[in-house]
């Protein structure tokens, strides 16, 4: 009755490439989502080149540059964070993640001030100042709000995801195996033991009698690379991929809106 049965997790949970492929496919959808807006931008800019130039003078190149540097640096820190997790250096991982999140917050704060200033001056969709502008200038600002707005939403989502990752990674590496009701029902009356590879009993865990509802077995690992929770590494890598995408979109938004003049 005591034939060893493998309790492998789904084989593909250790298939990093597959999980990564899924994430890249999602990134492609994001690229095309923003790509559609870049299409509109390029068309309208070609038709209203001069007005775009005029409108862009309203934007503060300095804040734009600061924001660009903030995101670029946050990409660096999240990349280091992931590498550190692979190497088992949890402290660096956590520190770098925190810096990434802080830089993201800095970006959003800057954005808040930028938008507030514009709105205060009546330059917003439906605002008095905006409606008094020429067609091209209106289009510039409408596109500005939609594109940086959608980008900002993605930054917020990214910050949320990274915060979750911070929580996951902060937990000590370990593994929990749960013997659920279905598994237990197959071994009721059996005695749970620890045996070595020769089948010799080392220790007694307990009798699975009718009153046992659930069994949890917890492993807590030392912080070495081989024991780093692989699924956490995959999750963090995918979160990093998302964050880098947010960075790349801004890399294009920056010159197209702030450097036109």
């Amino acid at each position, binding site marked *: 009755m005591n034939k060893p049965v*493998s309790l*492998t997790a789904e*084989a*593909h949970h250790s*298939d*990093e*490439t597959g999980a*990564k*492929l899924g994430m*890249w496919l999602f990134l*492609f959808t994001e*690229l*095309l989502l923003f*790509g559609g807006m*870049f*299409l509109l931008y*390029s*068309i309208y*800019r*070609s*038709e209203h080149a001069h007005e775009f130039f005029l409108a862009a003078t309203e934007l503060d*190149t300095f804040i734009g*540059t600061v924001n*660009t*540097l903030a995101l*670029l*640096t946050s*990409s*660096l820190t*999240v*990349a*280091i964070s992931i*590498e550190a997790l*692979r*190497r088992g250096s949890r402290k660096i991982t956590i520190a770098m993640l925190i810096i990434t999140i802080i830089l993201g917050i800095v970006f959003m704060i800057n954005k808040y001030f930028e938008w507030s200033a514009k709105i205060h001056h009546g330059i917003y969709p439906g605002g008095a100042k905006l409606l008094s502008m020429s067609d091209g200038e209106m289009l510039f600002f409408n596109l500005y709000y939609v594109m940086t707005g959608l980008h900002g939403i993605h930054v917020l989502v990214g910050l949320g995801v990274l915060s979750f990752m911070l929580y996951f990674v902060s937990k000590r590496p370990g593994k929990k195996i749960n013997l659920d009701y279905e598994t237990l029902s197959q071994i009721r009356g059996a005695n749970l033991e620890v045996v070595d590879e020769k089948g010799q009993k080392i220790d007694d865990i307990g009798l699975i009698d009718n009153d046992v509802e659930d069994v949890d077995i917890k492993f807590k690992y030392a912080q070495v690379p081989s024991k780093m929770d692989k699924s956490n590494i995959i999750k963090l*890598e995918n979160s*990093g*991929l998302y964050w*880098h995408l947010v*960075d*790349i979109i801004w*890399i*294009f938004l*920056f*010159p*197209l809106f702030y*450097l*036109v*003049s």
Partner: protein
Amino acid sequence: MNQNASSSVENQENHSIGYGVYILVWLSLVVFTGLTVAVAGVDLKALAVTVALSIAATKSILVLMYFMHLKYEPPLFRTLVVVVVVALATFIILTFLDILFR
């Protein structure tokens, strides 16, 4: 029990990328950012957009290849990124066919 029928060698991801590489990439990105800001002050007329987009593209490629590991992934991933970029470019170009020739 591994159902993996992929013919590519399973990339063990043990290619540890040194922190140094990342920092170098970051420095390049900062330099390019400075470059694009500086160039914006120069009146290049029609060439301005091309230059700005080229620098942005270069920065993106750096982020893609190093930060996002594309350089170290199976070739399929790089191919797919190219496919997506080409698809987007095609949509834009065909639409311009309308706008420019009305």
